[in-house]
């Protein structure tokens, strides 16, 4: 970005004396009041309540007592929590690049103007995003079945033994496959719409200069959609850390592979709903929220700095 001059109007305003003397105007509150009320109610209040909850401990024997930051201390030393965080980090490191790369590739292909039926492909690839995650997971779960599912049918039909997608070793990859299927279209659309706003004059200039398609992509298209790339990356990071639906729905099919502490979100869910440890669960959730915020923020800073 180039340096901005302050708008001239700003200077002029400070010079002007206040129109109504010392009386404060409450009119502004009328405009932001509804926002502040809703924001407080649906955003601040739950966070404050979670923090409040996380400072207590409720036991089957002994009831509720104030424990200060004990829950946080326990969470930081909780192997199950760190293991789950490690799992989603691995997921993030492998699945997100694949998904974004595929999304980008499709967006560039659609944007190249050399394909027939662009509209059809755009809709078809986006369609999985419109399928609710729960339905998508159920559908994939059925296909993954080695007994009566698609994998089982393939095994029977061709007399082969495919590896079980729901085994301990493969289930994370299987979940990655579902998530990729669901979100490639969504990311593709973000990239595609960013590509669409690139002015045509740049392409004309490139053509006059004799640049090939590869050069056009690396020198014009990618730099132009850097903002979109950063946004998509941040969404994907948050999505990975919040992984919950897919493991939760696949679990009945693979109880031994998907443990109750499989992802941080699933762990907090199990703590809260199976173990009735709402307080500890709140502490884990807050720590996880902070970690997500920090990582998303770092990615944003780095992404934007390069873009400057």
């Amino acid at each position, binding site marked *: 970005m180039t340096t901005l001059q302050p708008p001239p109007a700003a200077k002029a305003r400070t010079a002007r004396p206040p129109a109504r003397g010392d009386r404060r105007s409450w009119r502004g509150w009328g405009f932001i009041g509804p926002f502040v009320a809703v924001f407080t109610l649906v955003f601040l209040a739950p966070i404050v309540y979670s923090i409040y909850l996380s400072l207590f401990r409720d*036991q089957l024997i002994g009831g509720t007592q104030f424990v200060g930051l004990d829950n946080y201390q326990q969470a930081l030393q909780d192997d199950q929590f760190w293991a789950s965080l490690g799992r989603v980090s691995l997921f993030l490191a492998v699945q997100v690049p694949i998904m974004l790369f595929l999304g980008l590739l499709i967006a560039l292909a659609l944007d190249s103007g050399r394909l027939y039926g662009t509209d059809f492909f755009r809709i078809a690839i986006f369609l999985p995003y419109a399928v609710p995650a729960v339905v998508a997971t159920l559908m994939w779960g059925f296909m993954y*079945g080695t007994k009566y599912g698609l994998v089982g049918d393939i095994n029977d039909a061709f007399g082969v033994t495919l590896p079980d997608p729901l085994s301990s070793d493969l289930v994370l990859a299987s979940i990655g496959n579902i998530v990729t299927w669901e979100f490639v279209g969504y990311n593709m659309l973000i990239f595609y719409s960013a590509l669409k706003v690139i002015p045509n004059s740049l392409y004309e200039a490139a053509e006059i200069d004799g640049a090939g398609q590869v050069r056009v992509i690396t020198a014009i298209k990618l730099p132009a959609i850097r903002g979109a790339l950063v946004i998509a990356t941040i969404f994907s990071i948050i999505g990975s850390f919040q992984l919950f639906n897919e493991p939760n729905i696949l679990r009945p099919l693979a*109880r031994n592979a998907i443990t109750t502490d499989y992802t941080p979100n699933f762990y907090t869910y*199990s703590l809260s709903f199976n*173990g*009735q440890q709402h307080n500890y669960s709140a502490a884990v959730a807050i720590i996880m929220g902070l970690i997500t915020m920090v990582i998303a923020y770092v990615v944003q800073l780095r992404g934007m700095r390069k873009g400057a």
Partner: protein
Amino acid sequence: MRRTTGRLMRGLAVLSVLTLGATACGGSDDDSGQKAVSADDVQAALEKGGSVTVWAWEPTLKTVAADFQKKYPKVKINLVGERSGDKHYTALSNAISAEKGVPDVSQVEYFALGQYSLTEGLSDLAPFGADKLKDKYTPGPWNAVSEGDKVYGLPMDSGPMALYYNKKIFDKHKIAVPTTWDEYVEAARKLHKADPKVYIANDAGDAGFTTSMLWQAGSRPYKVDGTKVKVDFSDAGAKKYTDTWQKLIDEKLLAPINGWTDDWYKGLGDGTIATLASGAWMPANFVTGVPNASGDWRAAPMPAWTKGDKASAENGGSSLTVPALGKNKELAYAFVEYANSGAGVQSRVKEGAFPATTADLKTDTFLNTEFEYFGGQKANEIFAESAANVSDDWSYLPFQQYANSIFNDTVGKAYVGNTKLIDGLKSWQDASVKYGKEQGFTVE
């Protein structure tokens, strides 16, 4: 003087209102435990009518609810039955802690009762007269629902174990039905060799099944004394079980199918799963869940750990309870009593349920009932004998429901990886101990 009196009077008035309010609040908390309810109160409630929400997945309750409504036309029973297992308890615990949407009657399996009675989530039914029903029930289930002179539910059924087996498959491969667990392992090998698609049983790690097997093998891993708890999976019984079961796991003789899934029903129906060691409440589920295999299956006594030994165990079995926060308690109790002690028992037995009431277990009609599904076999004779051989010194943890929810995190590893079953049990023990300590129990 007058002014002072006036002020005093006003002060007194305020004070009495405050105390009234206080007693009212104090009273509402535990009036279920204090106030004795007469039969007349229950009768009056039945005449006045109202609605009772029942959370239960027991299939035979449908007829019971219909009959009950016919008898008391003013009462409406809302039977909510789509949830079972983990999901059921999660929903119930959530409703109780949110103090909202708590059902009037809830099915609770014996293993999970401790958790709810300990936290006072269930009404004591003794004031309704439930304590006088003690002699009607077999000792095992009654031990499970009562604690001192408090009664937290009425036993709905009991689950003395039996070995259900697919006779067609055994006949086809000319293999004898096993009477000991050693023979069982042998039969498993032969069956799977004869037809690689056939497994002796399905087991992908099931807490209820494993604890029942331990129970039969003579293991007593849980010792509970009030808030003192001991967990120990290292006794001789546990070793007997893990040694045998490890063979089945290692040789891949168990179908990796979870119970109560579509795959499971299919497997029971198409001969993939050749036997099922389960409670005596299973026949009703066979009839509704695996209708296509009618006639294929039979019941047999549980295989013994040593030849000739008759020791059996309970698997599952539930009670109907009245949650403390439910609304229509009189009506709720009336329904519970009707279903589990009154006329409801007969209609449930007719549909294949296995009652916990002694009288019903001993009648000739019960013992001579021919199970059409089992090719006319008089299966109740086997179940009744099993019931008589269940030792009642077993106890579950007061937080068994949580322990069961993490079973697959720990023991489950033995079914899919290199972990040995006995080590899996050890880590289950450690996790249970850890949770018990966190919850304020004294754990040894």
